[in-house]
Each structure stands twice: as structure tokens, then as C-alpha cells.
């Protein structure tokens, strides 16, 4: 029944998960269409590389396709999906060779975004976000871009909401410092 009202994103994910559990792998395309962009964005925050982020998304969606009922029956399906993505991304980061990790430092995920020709200020912000530690950057992404509560963020990270909140505050403080430094560097 279509009431014409815009469906909440989390509710949309829940519906897709239920369809996936009902119809099987054929419905995975719907889950991908709804979530892929956000999943890649979150995975890129952790892996700092686009290719690794896509690998993480692929591994997570395959894992979900094998056990779709777990996602459909989760309390917060969107948070559960992000948790699976997080685990896969961290596995990829752990498996990386140390030499490649040095390359990641030089090629930040924000530089990919900076190539899009967007506003300069937003480029600074993303660049500063890329300089944060992944544990703090992911909290900022989940809180601001994914519009999650600290309770939901805590569920994704496997931490308490208070820990998530304190990480968020530290992240914003660091972001502020980075932004000042970046602004001075680019305006000089």
C-alpha cells in the first residue's frame, strides 16, 4: 500500500531485507541499489581507498545473500548492514601489506572527492575528515551523514553510546583544528 509519504531510509532497508529473505538472491539487486552508495562511502572512511571499499561492500553483500534472514530479523537492519561492512572493511585493512599502507597515506579518499570539481570549502572539510583517525572519522560519518543516533552508532561499533559520543566530540575538535590549518595552508 503506497501512502505517498516518503519512506525513512532505515525502513526502506528493512523492506529490502525482508524481500531478500522472501525471494532469495534475486532480490539482492534491490538492496544494492538502495544502499550501495552509502555503504561505499562508509567503507571508504575505514579503508581510505575506493577499491578496498568496493571489495568490502561486495564481501558484505555476498555474506548477507547467504544468510538473508539474519538481516531481515535484525532490530536495526541498516545498522546491522553497516556493522557487516565495517567488519569486512577492517578485515581488508588488516590483510593489507605494510607497503601498501604507506601508499594509502599519500592517496587519501578525499582526494578522489576533490577531483569532482565541487566547492573548495567542502573539499577542505572532506580533506580534514580524511586526516582523522578512522575510529573518529567513522563516528562523524555515521552521525552526520547517516543521521544515526549515538545508540545506533554504538551498536554498529560494538561500543557504548557514551563512547561513541565522546569520540564524536573529539573528532569535531580535531576537525576544527585541521580545518583551520588547512585553510591557512591553502590561503597562504
Amino acid at each position, binding site marked *: 500500500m503506497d501512502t505517498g509519504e516518503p519512506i525513512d531510509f532505515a525502513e526502506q532497508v528493512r523492506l529490502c531485507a525482508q524481500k531478500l529473505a522472501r525471494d*532469495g*538472491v534475486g532480490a*539482492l*539487486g534491490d538492496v*544494492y*541499489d538502495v544502499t*550501495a*552508495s*552509502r555503504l*561505499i*562511502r562508509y567503507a*571508504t572512511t575505514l579503508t581510505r581507498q*575506493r577499491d578496498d571499499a*568496493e571489495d568490502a*561492500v*561486495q564481501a558484505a*553483500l*555476498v555474506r548477507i*545473500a*547467504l544468510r538473508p534472514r539474519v538481516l531481515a530479523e535484525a532490530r536495526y537492519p541498516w545498522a546491522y548492514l553497516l556493522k557487516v561492512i565495517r567488519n569486512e572493511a577492517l578485515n581488508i585493512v588488516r590483510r593489507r601489506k605494510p607497503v601498501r599502507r604507506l601508499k594509502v597515506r599519500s592517496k587519501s579518499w578525499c582526494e*578522489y*572527492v576533490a577531483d*569532482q570539481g*565541487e*566547492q573548495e*570549502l*567542502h*573539499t577542505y*572539510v*572532506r580533506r580534514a*575528515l580524511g586526516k582523522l583517525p578512522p575510529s573518529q572519522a567513522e563516528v*562523524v560519518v555515521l552521525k*552526520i*551523514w547517516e543521521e544515526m543516533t549515538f545508540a545506533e552508532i554504538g551498536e554498529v561499533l560494538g561500543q557504548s553510546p557514551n563512547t561513541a559520543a565522546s569520540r564524536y*566530540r573529539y573528532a*569535531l*575538535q580535531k*576537525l*576544527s583544528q585541521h*580545518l583551520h590549518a588547512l585553510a591557512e595552508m591553502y590561503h597562504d
Partner: protein
Amino acid sequence: MPCKSCLSTCTPWRRCIMTDLRQLREIEKLVEDSVFHPSPRHHLKQRVLKRAIEAKHRQTLWKRFAVTSSAVSGTLVIAFVGFRLFTSGPTTTATETGPVRVQIYSPGHNLQPVAPTQTSTASGTSLGEDLYFHPAHLQSVDSPQAERPVAGSEQSNLSNNKDVRTNPQ
């Protein structure tokens, strides 16, 4: 009192915190405005779907293999147990009866079972002497309990005969 976060002695801490909060809200707003939506690469969806279908197929095969192998192994176990029960039936009955008793009979044996305990207690000899038990020898020995059944049977026969003979009717 100097502010701990910015370490400046000139700014009072209350004003500094307010400035800090305002700054953080501004930062939040900035980050919110600079949201981006990365478009996934074209081939990623096809790759994900292909891998998912392959993984699902593998999972189905593994499930079938597990079910088949467990069924086969269960059937084999049942068949083996059934075979063992069927073939070992008579052997188990023989063992249940205990060790086989062998009796050696001499030509003069009267084919009547002799209770060894009764004989030993009656004669007052040890149990070891029963191993050399010989009926022919026993007949020569004046043992009333050993001879009683044989003599009794003869006597009864004789008495029966006597009764038949003496009875004039």
C-alpha cells in the same frame, strides 16, 4: 583562569567554551553540507550479483553433500549393526549358557547324574577327590548313599515283581 583546550591565558574559560561549542556546531554544519554520494562503479553491481549467486550455489551444493553423506553414513551404520546382530545371534545364546560341561562316561556308568556336593559331604572327603570319581569304583565301595538310587530302583522293581507274584489275585 586559563582555558585548557586552547591554552590561552587571555580568554576566560566560559567565553572559550561558548566559542568552542559554537565552533563545533559550525563544524557539524560544515560537514553536513559537504556530504557526498559516491556513485558505485558500473560493473560493481554485476560483480556483486554474480559472486552472490555463485556463493549461494556453492552453499546449496554443500548442503546437499552434507545431507547425502550423513544419510549414506547413517544407512551404513544401521546396516552394519543389523548385520552384526543377525550373524552373531546363535553365538550369543551359546555364550549365555556358560561353559560347556563335559562328562566322561565309563562302561559301567549308570547314566544317572551324581550330585558332587552330596557325595563329598556324605563321604567327608575333599572336593578334589571328586575329580577322580569313577562309578565302577564307587559300586565296590560300601557307600549306601551312592548305591541307594541303583539299589532302590532294583528293589522297587523286585518288590513290584514280588507284589505281582505274591499277589494271588
